[in-house]
């Protein structure tokens, strides 16, 4: 097993499109790193560069101690699980798993042993003679995993492996992948656009946007202290509320546009006088009595999810862009038109510079 390292990695396509603007990061041995971001952010490109399916324009990718930029995919000692599984449709499950080993001239009995072992781990024992076309989506997914496992690679690369499954199966397979990776202890790089998948699977996350790694950290680090507006909005569901305003004259709070009262949470000292963006997650707003409230929201719509309800509304007197979502206890009855008075947990208020989107600290 080995770690993985990106040193100043850039990718420019022949047509001039810049896909990756410079990534530096080290993945340690056995770590599970998830690359998350919206479509087109370059996350798949980054993964495919590690696999050797895309060339590296600039910088260096290392697996273990070795620079792999120039190596063929087969020589990098990695295994990949594709979104559409990419199983060979004309080969049996056994042959699908064995193909890579045969190409490496692994001895026959060794192949049989490894495939049997992987089939055992993935509960595929009875299916080894079937063709991929005869399997369910979940089973195909397992075969794709099996094909990666039997190779005993230095690293697993996952390219949105769960997005072709239905919601229920996705949750189940997510757990299985995590369990498997823990058991094998193989360094893993996992690409997804689904932030729930990212949060639950990752030891560490890379949040990417437009070819740039906006933030790298553990899921909770990122949740608690998002480095940019983009990260703050992307991680967490429902998304964080953003309210614009100005820093109060005495620096002890912020005057939100469309709110009557000053929000009495002091912005960090680095905040210049002037415009500021305040971020508060829906789960960090709490209905209270009118007197102690920091914000007042006119309710427009309530989505009851059972355990809790999502209340969508606007700041009272609010103008454009003052939409607020609040997560309240499911037992609480809230009706449209009602004015909800809300308190804010001071530790959970985030301040951003509206010009460059950076977190103020």
């Amino acid at each position: 097993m080995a770690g993985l390292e990106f040193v100043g990695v850039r990718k420019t396509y022949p047509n001039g499109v810049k896909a990756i603007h410079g990534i530096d990061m080290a993945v340690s041995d056995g770590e599970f790193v998830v690359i998350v971001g919206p479509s087109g952010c370059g996350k798949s490109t980054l993964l495919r560069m590690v696999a050797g399916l895309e060339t590296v324009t600039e910088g260096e990718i290392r697996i273990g101690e070795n620079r792999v930029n120039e190596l063929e995919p087969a020589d990098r000692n990695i295994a990949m699980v594709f979104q559409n599984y990419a199983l060979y449709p004309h080969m049996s499950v056994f042959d699908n798993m064995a193909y890579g080993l045969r190409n490496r001239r692994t001895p026959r009995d060794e192949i049989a042993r490894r495939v049997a072992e992987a089939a055992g781990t993935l509960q595929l024992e009875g299916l080894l003679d079937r063709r991929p076309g005869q399997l369910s989506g979940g089973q195909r997914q397992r075969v794709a995993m099996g094909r990666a496992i039997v190779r005993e690679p230095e690293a697993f690369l996952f390219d949105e492996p769960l997005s072709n499954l239905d919601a229920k199966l996705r949750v189940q397979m997510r757990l299985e992948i995590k369990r498997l990776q823990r058991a094998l202890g193989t360094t893993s790089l996992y690409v997804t656009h689904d932030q729930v998948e990212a949060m639950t699977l990752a030891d560490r996350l890379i949040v990417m946007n437009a070819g740039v790694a906006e933030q790298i950290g553990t899921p909770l680090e990122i949740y608690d202290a998002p480095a940019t507006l983009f990260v703050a909005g992307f991680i967490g569901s429902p998304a964080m509320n953003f309210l614009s305003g100005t820093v109060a004259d005495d620096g002890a709070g912020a005057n939100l546009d469309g709110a009557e009262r000053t929000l009495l949470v002091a912005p960090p000292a680095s905040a210049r006088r002037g415009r500021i963006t305040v971020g508060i997650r829906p789960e960090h707003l709490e209905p209270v009595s009118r007197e102690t409230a920091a914000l007042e929201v006119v309710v427009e719509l309530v989505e009851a999810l059972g355990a809790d309800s999502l209340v969508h509304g606007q700041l009272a007197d609010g103008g454009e862009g003052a939409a607020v979502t609040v997560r309240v206890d499911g037992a609480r009855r809230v009706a449209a038109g009602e004015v909800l008075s809300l308190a804010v947990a001071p530790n959970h208020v985030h301040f951003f510079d509206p010009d460059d989107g950076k977190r103020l600290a």
Partner: protein
Amino acid sequence: MVENRPWLTVFSHVVLCLGVLVTALPIWIAFVASTHPADSMLSGRTPLLPGGNMLENYATVLGSGVKAAGSIPVGTMLWNSFVMALMIAVGKIAISIIAAYAIVYFRFPLRKTCFWVIFITLMLPVEVRILPTFGVVASLDMLNSYWGLSVPLIASATATFLFRQFFLTVPEELAEAARIDGAGPLKFFRDILLPLSRTNIAALFVILFIFGWNQYLWPLLVTTDEGFYTIVMGIQRMLQAEDAEPAWHEIMATSMLAMLPPVLVVVFMQRLFVKGLIEQEK
């Protein structure tokens, strides 16, 4: 159908049966003629029911040919046709599939040019370049040979495009997975792409075999040695008999034999054949 109109359905069946009859009529007449002795043909009109000379007539043409026209045995012509059709079908498929593979899966200089050069063959059927093509084949000393009969016909834009079209529908991840599994370009072609193309190859084979079998002008040009006559062009020689009236019973027996192999291929491999044809529209 949408609503129940029995008379319309009956009408449809009647029309279709008529269509089937007209389709079959020439073959029936030919078959009947091929089973009668020579003198039945002189009575003023062809009989409508089979006669008793079937085995004799077929044995004669197969074994010794149509005597009146001085032809070689039809058995030899059948063999020539078979060899030519097979070489054309196999040759076209072989060179087209590798060319399509190169064009789809590789980037190389002049790739676009190659594509256009192949495309141009669509515009140049044998019929429009008869003399110069004959000249080339003659100067390559390929007249009166199986090579001369087949090789000049095996370049095929259609087959190349069909394979290209099919390769483009093969998920790219398959090639990527194969690369990660350590398969080089040739191994990927042999282990993955070729097995996946099986039905396409079979469908194309049916079409191309018929195409090759039915060649007429080309064998007419490049064979002067009777030993290389194919059956489809050989029939014409039989009609040019020196006698006043051709030996119809034997000519019809030969025609039946000329139709039999491709018709059997179409009837028994109908699904493949239909698939192969319809794909050409796409």
